[in-house]
Structure formats: structure tokens, C-alpha cells
């Protein structure tokens, strides 16, 4: 028997507390694979967000700091300034990065901090049970937009890659998705790119990953994948939004 894949060495668990059908587990595995391939586990400092990924330190075998809601880019900025030779990974969700922490991410990006950011966009607040996020689609029903999000009074979903692309010091911005094997492979390549950029001293690099939250969306896992394909991809087009190399 040929072993094609094993659990990444930097991943410490074979099970997570993520819900069935959740996208975080897939992204976690991709991070583990890239960390192993680049051999950076022992020089990595990871910022865990507030939200479902708060206990990342239970899953990844590296130094971790658990940040206040939205503040990871500020925390990471300081860590990278103190240890410029270390690898700093910022992992944030959409409520964390695009709502309460919008100021921190914009200014970290604008300063061109040499950090790698993984931004998980699942169009909702997962951990608190599926409330409206800044990325919630128009018409999408959540517990705090029970009749569906409307433009009037709630505004339109924020496209973070497009927004950050206006800042000249951002070096690499890409939006990917994990709704299919093909897109999962592309996501891994994007993660590798934003990691490699930091190691090469290129500067602020981020990958936005469209991800499933079946429990928050209150649909079965298969329909969550369909929601990305049929709804999210229309509003959040995949692609590279900035590549200054």
C-alpha cells in the first residue's frame, strides 16, 4: 500500500471541535501541510482570533497568542517588530477582521507589515450562532437579520480584498474558496504564496478564503457547499487582487 498523504506533523490533533461540514478544518489542514513543507513550525508565532478558531493552539503545534476580538493585526504587528526573523501568521474570521477589527487590519496593511494573513469569510458569525456579519449577502437570513439582509439600513457586504487592494503597501491579495477539490488545491497554493512572501520579506500578504458554515447558515453540509457556489462566488469573485511581484 502506498501512503499518499498523512496528517501534517505540525497538526497535533486528528479531530477538532469544529462542526460537521465546517471549512475551518480544511483550512487548518492546508496550513499544516504548508508549514511542514516550508519547515517553519519552530519559527512560527500564530495569532488565534476570537471566534470558532480561538483554540487553534489545541490543533497546531507552535507558539500561539490568543487575541482580543479584531486586534490580531495589532498584536501581530508588535510580535513581528520584536522578532523580525520569526514567521507571524494572522488567522481571522469575517466578524473579527471586517467588523470589530477593521481599523487594525487596514492600518497593518497600510503600514505594509511583513505578515501573512488568512482571512476566513463564511458570511456569518459562526461561534455566536449565525448572526449577520459585514460579509453577509443581501437577502441572507441570519438570527439578527431574520427577514434577510437589506441594503437599506444594513449596507452591502464588504469585499475585503478589493478594499485592501486600494492600499499601496499591500503586496499580495487573493480570494479563494474551499467548495471543491480544485479550489482547495488553489487555496493551498495561495496560502503557500502568502507564507513565502513573508519569508522573502515581500510584505503584507493575505488570502481570503470563502468557507462553509452549515450550522450558522442552518443548512446541511452539502447545501453549504452549494451556497458558496451559487451565492457567494457571484458577489465575492475569486482571483488575485494584488500581486506586486
Amino acid at each position: 500500500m502506498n501512503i499518499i498523504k498523512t496528517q501534517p506533523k505540525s497538526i497535533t490533533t486528528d479531530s477538532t471541535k469544529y462542526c460537521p461540514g465546517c471549512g475551518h478544518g480544511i483550512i487548518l489542514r492546508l496550513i499544516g501541510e504548508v508549514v511542514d513543507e516550508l519547515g517553519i513550525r519552530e519559527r512560527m508565532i500564530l495569532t488565534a482570533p476570537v471566534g470558532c478558531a480561538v483554540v487553534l493552539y489545541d490543533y497546531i503545534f507552535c507558539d500561539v497568542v490568543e487575541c482580543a476580538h479584531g486586534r490580531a493585526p495589532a498584536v501581530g504587528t508588535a510580535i513581528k517588530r520584536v522578532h523580525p526573523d520569526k514567521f507571524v501568521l494572522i488567522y481571522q474570521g469575517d466578524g473579527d477582521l471586517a467588523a470589530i477589527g477593521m481599523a487594525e487590519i487596514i492600518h497593518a496593511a497600510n503600514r505594509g507589515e511583513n505578515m501573512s494573513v488568512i482571512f476566513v469569510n463564511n458570511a456569518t458569525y459562526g461561534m455566536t450562532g449565525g448572526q449577520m456579519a459585514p460579509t453577509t449577502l443581501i437577502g441572507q437570513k441570519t438570527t439578527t437579520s431574520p427577514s434577510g439582509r437589506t441594503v437599506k439600513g444594513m449596507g452591502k457586504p464588504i469585499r475585503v480584498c478589493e478594499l485592501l487592494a486600494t492600499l499601496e503597501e499591500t503586496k499580495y491579495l487573493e480570494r479563494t474558496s474551499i467548495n471543491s477539490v480544485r479550489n482547495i488545491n488553489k487555496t493551498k497554493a495561495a496560502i503557500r504564496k502568502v507564507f513565502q512572501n513573508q519569508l522573502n520579506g515581500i510584505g503584507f500578504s493575505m488570502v481570503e478564503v470563502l468557507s462553509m458554515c452549515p450550522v450558522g447558515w442552518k443548512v446541511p453540509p452539502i447545501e453549504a457547499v452549494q451556497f458558496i457556489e451559487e451565492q457567494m462566488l457571484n458577489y465575492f469573485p475569486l482571483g488575485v487582487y494584488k500581486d506586486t511581484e
Partner: protein
Amino acid sequence: MAENNDTGSDTKRVLMKGNEAVGEAAIKAGCLCYFAYPITPQTETPEYLAKRMEQENLIFLQAESEVAAINMVFGASAAGARVMTSSSSPGISLKQEGISYIAGGELPCVIINVVRGGPGLGNIEAAQADYFQSTRGGGHGDYRCIVLAPNSVQECYDMVMNAFDLADFYRVPVIIQSDGIIGQLVEPFDMHPYKPMFEKLPPKTWALTGCAGRKPNVVRTLYLNPANGLEMHNRKLEERYKKIHSELRWSETYNCDDADIIVIAYGATSRIAKSAIKKHNTNGVKVGLFRLKTLWPWPDVELVEIAKKNKDVKFLVIEMSMGQMLEDVQLSLMDVVPKKDILFYGMGGGWNPTPDGVYEKISEIINK
């Protein structure tokens, strides 16, 4: 900064603002990073450090907000660096979220609060109305910060050095509670080299440096598991706070022996009070001063001792607030002094008492 009187030794007699002395002390104490946001009346500190930290090749960053600044402090401290921020009252309110995380994460740092009038924007004059905020934790949860209260530029300089040592020794945030008068005050002081308080500080084995050759370190404040995890964490913190209370109560007395009236004050107010006390002493009136140098831990043991020694003594609490430290005085003395013998003279609105005003107030008490 004007320099004079170079003694030829390592110590120089220099003329500086309190806000500048704070910055120079931080550099000498080995502060690697400073993160802050402009606000009156503390802006001289970031301005001073912007220049000096560049000269010394240290890390200066003007943050996008007070919230970001304190979270940068959190990050730098977690990474093992000596780190400081400074602000004034409204900015300190914004920092409370981060201070709670720093306390919960058992991280050391130094926070300067050059207190101004409140609530809200208040004004930009000196005040002492952040006493509750500083001494009760300030943010959410069960925690304390060590609070040092300088009343001169010399003490601004010395206490910042002490603050870094105390923060590292106990792994708690240390606040320097200055005010708009002390921060803006220009006076000569001895600029000496860094004098460590402890022979040896505990190594920062918990710091995030990448886990090469060791198990990963995690800096966290969330305790979901086990069920009593947070309870155990809070008990551990409580033990530490008890230890700090037993080891670190700083106060000083002036003419308290045989005094009929003892004024209790800290910071700028203590110097104003001392002028009035000296004038009364010249006239043969027995008035003394009990000055706090730590606002937390509060020197309750020392005050009770004085109250027991001086029979029928009256206490006069003077604050640039409507009566915040007053409550700690009442709590400390509840078993030894009748409440009616604890009097209060306070100024609200970010305005300071004058020596004449304090003199009159003392006279009133004597003539009653």
C-alpha cells in the same frame, strides 16, 4: 531638555518635563518598544520617544488608536519585550480592554496615565478622577494593576524604572498615575543610570519566540476547560495580588508624629498640601502629611498604624476628584477612626486646589 551640572559621574542634573523624563527612564530601563496615540496632556512622551527611540534604534510606533496601541503592547509583551504605552484619561478608558487581556495573560508592561479631567472629554487640566479606574482593575474581570503615583519629575523618572522591574517580577501591568501638573511640570532632577530593583528577575520562559527546542508556548486568557479552569486561574492571580499587597505598599509621612490633623494626598495634590502644611507648622499647628506612592496596593497597614499612634487625630483627604481615594481611606480606618473624623476637600472638573485653599480648609478644621 536643557542640561547642566554634569557631575562627571554617570548621574547628570538635568531640566525636563515629567512627560519627557518618563520617556528617558523607559529607554534607560531597557524598554524595547513603545506604542501610543497622541492625546493632551501626555503628547510630549510620544514626541520625545519618537526622536530618542530612533536614535537608539528601538521600536517606536504611532498606533491608529489607543485600542491598537494597547494590543501592540500585549503582542510585544507576549513576545518577551519590555514595552510601554502612555496616554491620558479618555485614551486610558479605550485601553481598558487590552489591559484586561494583559492582566489575564499574566504579561508585564508599563502604562503611563497623565490624568486629565472627566467624564467624557472633560478638559485637559490635571485631575485625579481616574483613581477608581486604575485601582479597581479598570477593565472587565477580577484583576489588579500595580499603580505608582509620582509627585515630581525625579519620581516620574525613578518610578518608570521601578515599574519595568515590578511588572517583570510579578508579571502584572504597572500603571504610572501621573497627572496634567506632574506631566507638564519642568524641574531639575538627577538623571542616573538604570538601577534595577531586583538582583535577578525570573526568566521569561513563557514568551513567544518560536518553539525551537522546546514545547510551544501559548499566551491565553480563555479558560473553557476544565470546568473550574478559570476559577483556578483567578485564584492564582488573587494569590499574586495578596503577595504584592504584602510586599509593596509605598507611602511617606511628613510631620505625622503628634499631629492633630493628617492630610492624605498623592501626586500633585500632595505637593500643594505640603506647602499649606509647612505654613501651618510655622505657626505651631500640628499638621502632618501621609502621602501615597502606591495607589494599589494601598498602604492601609501604614495608615492604621499612624491612626493608632495619634489619639483623636483627624484626617483630611485631598483629591482632584469628587472623592474616590476617600473611600479607601474610610475602608482602611473603619475599625480605628470614627467616620466623622475623616474629612474631605475635593475639586472636580479638572481643577487643582491651591496652597491657600488647603491652608484655609485646615484652619476651618482647627477652629471648629
